[in-house]
């Protein structure tokens, strides 16, 4: 059974693509057959984060317009052979996507026996974002602990429960999860940042994971290695927990408290 998961947020720059890449790798690490699709036609990034930007020959739009086969466009990951990337087109715009085309590609992935298909949504609520969420069974809403991101996520949650195939056909609603990224416990304590409880209270859905703000994320993005593979970074470990929860395991939340500065770290810095 193939599960379609959309990674979305409304607001830009909150970490959708970083999260898509890490969750895709995490699921592949658990032995699942995974495809991750970049819906951000015209502003493609996923290939960079996945480290396969020099191997993009055909893209999602080519497949939709039947200019190549799906097999030709799927880029096999170098680390996990059960992980595939479908890059967005950089030279086209969102209007190159059609609902029928997207549906055909997703159905083909289903026939290929993929366990999970992740749809990395562009920011906004226009066509690209709409098509990324339309066929979803599950949604991971990426949110930063700040008011504008929370409001945009609220809007996206509303669209998920009204503008998706599941909503239109009256099937069981799209399962919704929150993924809190760029969480900085020290700033929460200082009152600069919203806390996980604030966000949960406003949005009213269950939290899949909290990814702490970490220098590892930027370094990982720039080197094309999804941060989940960096076991030295808290962000990587937090993504690992989130993927385990997605697969139904229970893992306690980590990295929610501000680190107490001990005498040693005071002396040597952390």
């Amino acid at each position, binding site marked *: 059974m193939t599960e379609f998961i959309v990674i979305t947020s409304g607001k830009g720059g909150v970490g959708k693509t970083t999260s898509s890449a890490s969750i895709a790798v995490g699921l592949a690490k658990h032995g699942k057959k995974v495809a991750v699709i970049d819906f951000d036609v015209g502003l493609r990034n996923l290939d960079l984060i996945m480290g396969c930007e020099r191997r993009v020959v055909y893209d999602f739009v080519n497949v939709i*317009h039947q200019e190549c086969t799906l097999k030709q466009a799927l880029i096999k990951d170098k680390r996990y052979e059960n992980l595939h990337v479908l890059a967005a087109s950089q030279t086209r715009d969102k209007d190159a996507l059609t609902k029928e085309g997207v549906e055909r590609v997703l159905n083909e992935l289903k026939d290929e026996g993929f366990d999970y298909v992740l749809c990395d949504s562009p920011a906004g609520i226009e066509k690209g974002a709409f098509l990324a969420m339309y066929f979803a069974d599950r949604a991971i809403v990426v949110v930063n602990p700040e008011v504008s991101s929370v*409001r945009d996520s*609220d809007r996206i*949650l*509303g669209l998920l429960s009204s503008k998706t195939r599941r909503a239109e056909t009256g099937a069981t609603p799209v399962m919704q999860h929150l993924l809190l990224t760029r969480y900085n416990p020290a700033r929460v304590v200082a009152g600069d940042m919203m806390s996980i409880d604030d966000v949960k*209270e*406003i949005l*009213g859905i269950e939290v899949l994971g909290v990814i702490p703000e970490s220098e590892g994320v930027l370094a990982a993005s720039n080197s094309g290695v999804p941060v989940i593979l960096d076991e030295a970074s808290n962000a990587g470990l937090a993504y690992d927990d989130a993927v385990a929860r997605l697969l139904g395991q229970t893992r306690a939340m980590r990295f929610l408290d501000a680190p107490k500065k001990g005498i040693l770290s005071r002396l040597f810095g952390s």
Partner: protein
Amino acid sequence: MSRALPSFEPVGELKFGQVGIANLRLKSLDDDLLAQELRQKLETAPQLFQRAPVVLDLSHLPQLPDAERVRAVLATVRASGMLPVGLAYGTSENEALARALDLPLFAKFRAAYESTAAAPEAAAVVANVAAAPPRATPPPPSAARGAAGMLQALPVRSGQQVYARGSDLVITAVVGHGAEVIADGSVHVYAALRGKAIAGAQGDTSARIFCQDFQAELVSVAGHYRVLEDIPADLRGKPVQVWLEGEKLLLARLGP
């Protein structure tokens, strides 16, 4: 000369969605009285009823009229300024009637019909109560409200609008920032109200707003509104009610 580019989009996009449609339930067949009642309705809120789509519900008539008779009723409704667009769902005779008139049936009203069929006596009681106020005085807007309010159990998210036409609106989930909850009657929110709440949307000055956790951006009763740029500290997060006293919109804490 210029050839049309191949289009990847269908010419027409077919979508299903809920739309607000007025339901005119006939209790007796009297064209003159109906015309008079509809005219009064239109005068109270012309912008709402003028050219408003309306579904004709014949299920409460003692017996189903024939197609000719219904055509006359439709003409009466049309003459009043509203636009009849179909019949409410009913029995198979009703369906045959709709076919004869070439009008669609609206299935949304099916549940209401069937429940009355199951308990005709209860329906008769309700009908009597509704018919009780003397016809001579123009009915106050609140008399048009349905017996039960509309229930919204899912969160109302930013950008969403929920409108309870002709009734109260009861919400048992959060109303987010930038969401709007509107009712012709009162608005009850048994959770946090962070968006806009509008009660008495058709001018009912007796409508009120109640909420458990007050953080609203705007509250309005019968057109008298207040923008809450700063929520008063004694009301924020507290159970609050909002009502109209004369021309003044009042906000106060509920309970002890």
